[in-house]
């Protein structure tokens, strides 16, 4: 399965890249890791006229601490994030989620920026970023804007990015030491896209839940926060029965489609199971 013809441009700087996007607009596709884009091109599901290869933009490949914010350059490879001590400390939910992401050769090339721009509903990182209340920095020649991740993701393969824009950075509030976290996923095989996944962050003070952030993968057009469950949990005292009730609530709140691989009923039960398990693990990890 060979890709269709395209013109190739390889900018050396972000500015050059933005020049090209301004020139070609909707006719162009940005090529970062290529682990999502190239299969689609090989399958001839997309036919960009111009491919803008941004792999030389080393200026977008970094992990930095910016006060109480983790700043990750959009071109940072998944594997670098998986191996990073800063991520392990600063966003342990991401580190744990990376256990489920693809395989090493894919992670060696794939980038965080590319992944969220692709916005695959079954992908893990959008959920991690949602749970962490991340912001996405988007640049064009008209300027730079920051978009909350929840506003950034629109649906499958759709984000708010305009044709003349590039994602440059992902900004994540630093993990707080007193918070617990857990990410769990069920996929058909190890490394496959999620049939369902949950990313959970809990802060518990004196036995009471003061922060609950739960993101779900695989239940709709895009990853989403289970705000109904979060509201239910806030200010409640931690207990097994509370978590059981929260999990049941989560299963009711989601509205998955049935597919050959997984019925709606099964997906709901996965949500219930994974919410219960992540709540238990997150509670265990929090310094309550």
């Amino acid at each position, binding site marked *: *399965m*060979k*890709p*269709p*013809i*395209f*013109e*190739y441009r*390889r900018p050396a700087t972000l500015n050059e890249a933005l020049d090209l996007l301004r020139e070609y607009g909707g006719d162009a596709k940005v*090529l970062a890791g*290529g*682990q999502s884009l*190239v*299969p689609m*091109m*090989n*399958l001839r599901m997309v036919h960009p006229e111009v*491919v803008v*290869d941004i*792999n030389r933009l080393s200026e977008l490949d970094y992990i930095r601490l910016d006060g109480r914010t983790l700043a990750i350059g959009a071109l940072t490879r998944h*594997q670098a994030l998986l191996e990073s001590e800063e991520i392990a400390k600063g966003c342990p939910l991401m580190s744990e989620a990376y256990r489920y992401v693809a*395989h*090493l*050769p*894919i992670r*060696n*090339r794939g980038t965080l920026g590319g992944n969220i721009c692709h916005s695959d509903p079954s992908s893990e990182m959008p959920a991690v970023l949602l749970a962490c209340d991340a912001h996405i920095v988007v640049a064009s020649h008209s300027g730079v804007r920051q978009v909350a991740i929840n506003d950034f993701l629109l649906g499958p393969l759709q984000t708010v990015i305009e044709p003349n824009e590039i994602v440059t950075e992902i900004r994540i509030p630093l993990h707080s030491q007193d918070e617990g976290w857990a990410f769990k996923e069920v996929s058909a095989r*190890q*490394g496959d896209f999620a049939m369902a996944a949950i990313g959970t962050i809990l802060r518990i003070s004196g036995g009471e839940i003061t922060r609950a952030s739960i993101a779900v993968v695989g239940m709709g057009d895009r990853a989403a926060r289970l705000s109904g469950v979060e509201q239910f949990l806030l200010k409640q005292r931690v207990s097994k029965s509370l978590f059981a009730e929260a999990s049941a609530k989560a299963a009711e709140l989601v509205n998955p489609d049935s597919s050959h691989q997984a019925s709606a009923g099964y997906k709901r039960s996965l949500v219930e199971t994974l919410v219960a398990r992540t709540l238990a693990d997150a509670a265990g990890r929090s310094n309550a």
Partner: protein
Amino acid sequence: MELVKITVTVNGQRYEREVPPRLLLSDFLREDLELKGTHVGCEHGVCGTCTILVDGVSVRSCLMFAVQADGGKIETVEGLGTVEKLHPLQQAFREKHGLQCGFCTPAMLMVSKELLDRNPNPTHEEIRESISSNLCRCTGYQTIVEAVELAAQLASGGSHERT
């Protein structure tokens, strides 16, 4: 159609070529450089049969365009060893029956090389994790893992009993 000039180093040898942008790296290696050891299994990044090392890390060559490899250092199975002088990995695969049809084997060898280059003494779990990125339809994987374990021993100069 515009061709793009690229320079790549493959198994230590420098090549300068002009290629169409859409030429996949897997096809470039096989057709332009006549290096047939890298195989093609799916062309959508799942099976791993086309896996090579680019700048020291494993990569699906079917998911890269040759133009992207410009300036890069590529390693394929042809660079590992020859029949006269097999790489410890190749020796070990033979000894442990880590291949049957051989089609996934170059990729298995390359991810194993990546592992051993970084970590000459991998644990059983680390070897399993490395191999798990590639599909094999013949062996059931067990003897591939055993081969990598043996290769680690051989490479570190350890002796072993042929079992």
